């Protein structure tokens, strides 16, 4: 993908918040792509996890907001345990999700889950899903 980088587009506040919420040093990443290679959900993502890190540290908030990648992540931590730089990408993914959810913008609505499915789903599915996708 091609993106335009300019001081006007850089969202310093966005970068600061991601660092604050995730506790991660975004500059640790050297873009080797291990996370994208090991992620079991990467084939369903529109942007690979590696690119999300790069966009985040460039402060390109819009590009990230237009991508569904962080909502496809299942926090399985395959990236976290395999990163050669010790960068915890699962925490950065969570921070990006929270920046949306904390504005009271939910990713899913519990009403959309059919009553039949609600009866079938194990509690941990409902609790973890609503924790990850609603504010």
């Amino acid at each position, binding site marked *: 993908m091609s993106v335009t980088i300019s001081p006007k587009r850089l969202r310093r506040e966005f970068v600061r918040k991601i660092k*604050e*919420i*995730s*506790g991660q040093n975004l500059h640790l990443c050297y873009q080797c792509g291990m996370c994208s290679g090991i992620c*079991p*959900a990467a084939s*369903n993502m529109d942007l690979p996890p590696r690119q999300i890190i790069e966009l985040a540290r460039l402060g390109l908030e819009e590009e990230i907001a237009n991508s569904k990648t962080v*909502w*496809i992540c*299942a*926090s*399985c*931590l*395959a990236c*976290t*345990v395999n990163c050669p730089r010790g960068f*915890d990408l*699962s*925490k950065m*993914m*969570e*921070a990006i999700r*929270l920046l949306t959810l904390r504005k009271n913008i939910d*990713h*899913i609505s519990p009403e959309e*889950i059919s009553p039949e499915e609600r009866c*079938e*789903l*194990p*509690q*941990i*599915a*409902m*609790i*973890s*899903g*609503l*924790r*990850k*996708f609603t504010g």
Partner: protein
Amino acid sequence: MGLAYYPGCTLKTKARNLEEPGIASMEVLEFKLEEIPRWNCCGAVYSLAEDDLIHQVAPIRNLIRAKEQGKNKLATLCAFCFNTLKRANLLMRENAEKRNTLNSFMDEEIDYGGEVEVVHLLEVLRDEIGWEALAQKVKLPLRELKIASYYGCTLLRPREIAIDSVENPTILRKFLKALGASPVDFPYATTCCGSYQIISNPGDISEYAWDILGSALRHGAEALVLTCPLCDYNLGRGQKELMKKHSEFKGMPLFYFTQLLALALGLDSQVCHFELNYGSPESLLREKNLLS
């Protein structure tokens, strides 16, 4: 011997076939699982945000309940609960500032500093009973049952809470060996089933399920053993659809590890609640003369 036990929500409803055979088996092994009083939901997922302390209260309250009972260990059967409780415990041990904030917030509870050790039942079997001693207690060896060990994520990641090697875990293989079964190795043993994405992207879950089940099948497995009710749901619910899509797939029984344990220890199969399982485990067990 008594062992403080945290069941979690799902084991009391959807996953009684994980809990009941576990409790019954441990009694045979002379360990009484003692449910801690006034336990609450652990929150299912560990909060990954540095500034989010409120979601740590739920898991830590459960750890405090164990401490109040004078227990230094808390056992879980559910892999999800294990992960959340153990990570929250680690936070209390390692981060003095957050520990103080959380302790001052929970002003009705005693102070907590991570004194209780969170263990999964597989660790109790390995570390406190031992595979050889377990093998000696087996009354019905699960001979000829070819089972693939599926770990999923939460027993092994992150590294700080892993119950075994993150890259090459063998604890379930050794468990199966002790029960007399034939363990099957396959490359998707630690690949995520999609987890909570089931409520947002169920279509993706079917893809992940086929990656895992198809690989186990190609490696010669007749069944899968697992520890997590969400893995069970994600790998079980769509099997009929997968059978329509992939002619070589005839369905694959999913067992909780506690069910295999109870069966091998010679307990009445009613305690296993096989009626709650996916993939008709009973017909496979009858075929192998493991169920009358």
